[in-house]
């Protein structure tokens, strides 16, 4: 099977949110609370938050079954650039048509797809879904998180990607691969 030849090596640091013996597959407990109570910026987001807030309490605490299956129609589309200090939190997938500037953050239960430059913080699979991915036309986040893995670019390397890339969990850490149709099928 041909692996794509421009796999970027694993991001340098992997910080665990809590000591290894506590972590396992449980997502950080902080996120469900933070997620439902923080205010979002623009008005069109507020409606969606209220809808999410009406979800019954059991789904706030992620269970084994719910954390890995996010239906594909549970997706939020944002058609603008996210500026520093703006924060999008949604329990499904998030698609951004625009940039995500440094200082902005996206916390999603599912995948994060940015049609632009991702320069802020992206947290995919915030409820523990390790199959979530983060992809962008220019993937250069200050920090990238998938489920309970946190990574950032190595200190000495100048991160300047020229093509769309996708970040996903592989084995023990997060890897970044070139994104093209069929990337996940090994073509």
């Amino acid at each position: 099977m041909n692996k794509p030849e421009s796999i970027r090596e694993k991001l340098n640091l992997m910080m665990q949110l809590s000591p290894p013996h506590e972590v396992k597959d449980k997502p950080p407990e902080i996120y469900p609370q933070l997620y439902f109570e923080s205010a979002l910026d623009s008005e069109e987001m507020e409606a969606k938050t209220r809808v999410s807030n009406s979800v019954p309490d059991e789904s706030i605490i992620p269970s084994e079954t719910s954390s890995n299956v996010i239906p594909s129609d549970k997706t939020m589309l944002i058609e603008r650039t996210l500026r520093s200090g703006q924060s999008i939190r949604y329990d499904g997938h998030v698609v951004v048509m625009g940039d995500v500037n440094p200082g902005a953050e996206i916390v999603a239960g599912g995948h994060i797809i940015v049609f632009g430059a991702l320069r802020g913080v992206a947290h995919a699979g915030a409820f523990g879904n390790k199959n979530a991915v983060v992809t962008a036309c220019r993937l250069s986040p200050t920090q990238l998180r998938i489920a309970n893995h946190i990574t950032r670019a190595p200190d000495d390397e100048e991160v300047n990607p020229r093509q769309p890339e996708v970040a996903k969990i592989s084995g023990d850490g997060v890897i970044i691969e070139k994104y093209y149709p069929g990337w996940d099928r090994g073509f």
Partner: protein
Amino acid sequence: MGEVIVVTSGKGGVGKTTTTANLGTGLAKLGYSVVLMDTDIGLRNLDVVLGLENRIVYDIVDVTNGHCRLKQALIKDKRFDGMFLLPAAQTKEKTAVTPDQMVELCNNLRQEYDYVVIDCPAGIEQGFKNAIAGAEKAIVVTTPEVAAVRDADRVIGLLEAAGIKEPQLIINRIRAEMVKHGDMMDIDDIIDILAVELLGVVPEDSLIVVSTNKGEPAVLEAGSKAGEAYRNISRRLTGENVPIMPLEVNEGIMKRLRKLIGMK
């Protein structure tokens, strides 16, 4: 027990964040354990100036809300083991923290670290009140400009009213040639108006721009005049008696020749 020092100014853009970063690094370089706290919630910059922005997981609002432990939020510096950063939140506002929470936080930090240096936001509203709540010492930063000195005077009045007696002064971005020509306020003029103890004078240095962009404080740069000034200030903070650097004027070659001959 450690010292909690707030770096404030009133006026924006005079160099509070740069001063906090350099002082903290200078103290860490001397071997002390330091915590740098960014209280500019919503407009955080201290992490960028220190080069630690991509290591932030939790911030000061998470700590005061109890979402995480203080130790989880503290970020160890890239270069010094004894220096830590407590970053501000970027997605919240200054009302997210109260002065009482700040007092408790500073008391906790004071038990374990030699110095806690707090970067205060510009202004005199909630952000300023939060930042000074837990501090017992203050450093006022000003530039040699009338507007900045006016604001510094206001801030010194507020600090004294809040119980922080005897703040110390740092004059930042001073240009020796302009002072010589009378275009810029002299150190004595400023002390005359503000009547506080002078902690240090930092000359204008274009290396500061480079250092803040790269995230490497100027104290670590041997060739930087501003870096040297900050190193001296760090030493003065610890009680050492370091004379103030004289203002150096860069003379062109014609001026030097004229001086040699005896012409003015």
